[in-house]
């Protein structure tokens, strides 16, 4: 670390609009997924319909990836001591590349247009590459070398592999590249869910669950072994799948599902030991996320041995909406009001407390709507009736519109307080 204040400094914090632009755009992609479901209800007939592929990428890239990148730009300096180079132009270009790439890719997948798919993959790949390059530079200069830093690196490897597999799949779909499509798609999903999303969620949970829910720490053996085991398991599964060894590949897939379930179970057990009174809506949503991981892992296991289209769809709904959207939404409700507070405090303006910047009631109501949307999506996947799918689409639009409204409300309160600009009373040194 240099002799300056380095990544510990408030100055290493990006301006509020940087993460906020990622978060608000992400909510728009969630709304787009709902709109798509409303107008194309047959999308949920199987995991292989163009509509299902488009929907998946609206959520995974449009919502999840954008939020995760925005949040990483904020937390890499704090958690891993990595200060990202040229933060503002880097963030602006990553935001532009990933959001246009997500839109183009989803549109291309929905309509089967090769140019849109390739353009989307190119934009997305470039955005991910710019971010990974900046993160690699930042982490290389980082003084921290604990397990969270290591697991964040593993998650970034997972992101890189997911992106490369995605680009190969786009070339296969759009230019007829001769590859084993089914196996590669499963690998793309596995690396995205576990190698990138799962490890990132776990790396975050190791730190934030004990700190913010005031629980004991995760068992050391779990935090030490989990992410390397996932990485090793994914590598083994990939090698066996591509080597044409389906039986052993299935076994390693089962081990990966068990690892995911073990993380979820450990988190649920830990959450039961919280010392905080009256668990809030975010706490309940985190429990929902972990329950969904376990149910999703079970559905994925059933899907391996069943031809029924419901099981892979249910696994997708549970993992993506039940787990990731839940965990991410709960996190946004903590991080956004805190960032608003932090930027006001930094500007020496008297900041309202977090619950004034984002009141509990609309958060609780939005999270109840989110929780109702999950069974609606599962029923839509099971019934194949367009009425249920449209209803699920409407709920999805409502959920993300409300999320956008709540986050934008906090941004508006931040802006108003900045304009009023009442100086904060400083405590004496």
């Amino acid at each position: 670390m240099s002799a300056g204040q380095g990544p510990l400094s408030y100055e290493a914090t990006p301006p509020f609009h940087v993460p906020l632009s990622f978060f608000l755009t992400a909510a728009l992609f969630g709304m787009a997924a709902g709109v798509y479901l409303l107008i194309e209800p047959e999308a949920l007939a199987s995991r292989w319909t163009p509509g299902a592929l488009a929907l998946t990428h609206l959520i995974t890239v449009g919502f999840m990836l954008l939020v995760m990148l925005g949040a990483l730009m904020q937390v890499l300096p704090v958690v891993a001591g990595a200060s990202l180079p040229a933060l503002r132009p880097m963030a602006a270009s990553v935001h532009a590349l990933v959001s246009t790439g997500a839109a183009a890719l989803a549109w291309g997948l929905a309509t089967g247009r090769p140019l849109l798919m390739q353009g989307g993959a190119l934009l997305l790949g470039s955005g991910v590459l710019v971010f990974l390059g900046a993160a690699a530079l930042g982490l290389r200069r980082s003084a921290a070398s604990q397990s969270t830093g290591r697991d964040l690196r593993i998650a970034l490897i997972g992101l890189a592999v997911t992106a490369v597999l995605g680009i190969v799949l786009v070339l296969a779909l759009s230019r007829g590249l001769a590859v084993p499509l089914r196996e590669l798609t499963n690998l793309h999903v596995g690396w995205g869910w576990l190698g990138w999303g799962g490890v990132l969620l776990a790396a975050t949970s190791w730190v934030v669950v004990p700190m913010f829910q005031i629980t004991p720490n995760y068992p050391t053996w779990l935090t030490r072994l989990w992410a390397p085991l996932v990485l090793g398991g994914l590598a083994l599964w990939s090698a066996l799948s591509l080597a044409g060894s389906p039986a052993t590949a299935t076994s390693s897939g089962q081990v990966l599902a068990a690892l995911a379930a073990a993380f979820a179970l450990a988190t649920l057990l830990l959450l039961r030991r919280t010392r905080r009174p009256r668990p809030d809506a975010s706490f309940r949503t985190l429990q929902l996320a972990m329950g969904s991981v376990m149910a999703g892992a079970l559905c994925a296991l059933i899907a391996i041995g069943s031809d029924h289209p419901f099981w892979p769809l249910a696994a997708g709904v549970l993992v993506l909406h039940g787990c990731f959207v839940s965990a991410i939404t709960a996190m946004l409700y903590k991080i956004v009001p805190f960032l608003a507070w932090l930027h006001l405090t930094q500007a020496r303006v008297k900041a309202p407390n977090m619950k004034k910047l984002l009141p509990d009631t609309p958060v609780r109501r939005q999270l109840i709507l989110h929780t109702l949307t999950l069974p609606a999506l599962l029923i839509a996947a099971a019934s194949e009736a367009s009425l249920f799918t449209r209803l699920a689409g409407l709920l999805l639009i409502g959920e993300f519109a409300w999320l956008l409204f709540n986050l934008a409300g906090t941004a508006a309160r931040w802006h108003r307080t900045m304009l009023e600009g009442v100086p904060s009373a400083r405590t004496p040194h």
Partner: protein
Amino acid sequence: MTTLTDLMTHDHRQCDGAFASAEHHVGRGEWDAARTALALFGRALNTHFGAEESILFPRFEQVTGMSHGPTMVMREEHRELRAALARLERAIDDQDADEYAGEAETLLIMMQQHNMKEENILYPMCDQRLHSQREELALDIGRQLGAGSPTEVSQ
């Protein structure tokens, strides 16, 4: 051998426990118990800050020559946290549970992002740069922390 990171991280968790105890009593409207619990939290917090500001940080600054480096940022955040603690005390004086909940949420997230920086970055740097004097420092700090430990906290 216990590292400075282990020692200081353990004390952070002790402070968390005291914080939770105060929040618990406020949630039940037990204002006298809440006042006592918050006082214990405040003592634990200030003892921890005191050990850092009077023992650990000066030694780190001396060895690295970084007096305007990470320790300065941490001292600034200590000031913010002390101000947040004062706001919690006011909320208890006013018996305002909503105000307390909002201020407590703010203090908790501020305290934990501060702790993350220390536990992930600053303390490992201290272990590395103060390696030869680690034992003696740990004893000094341990003595000071022991004096302010919130041992009476219970729910």
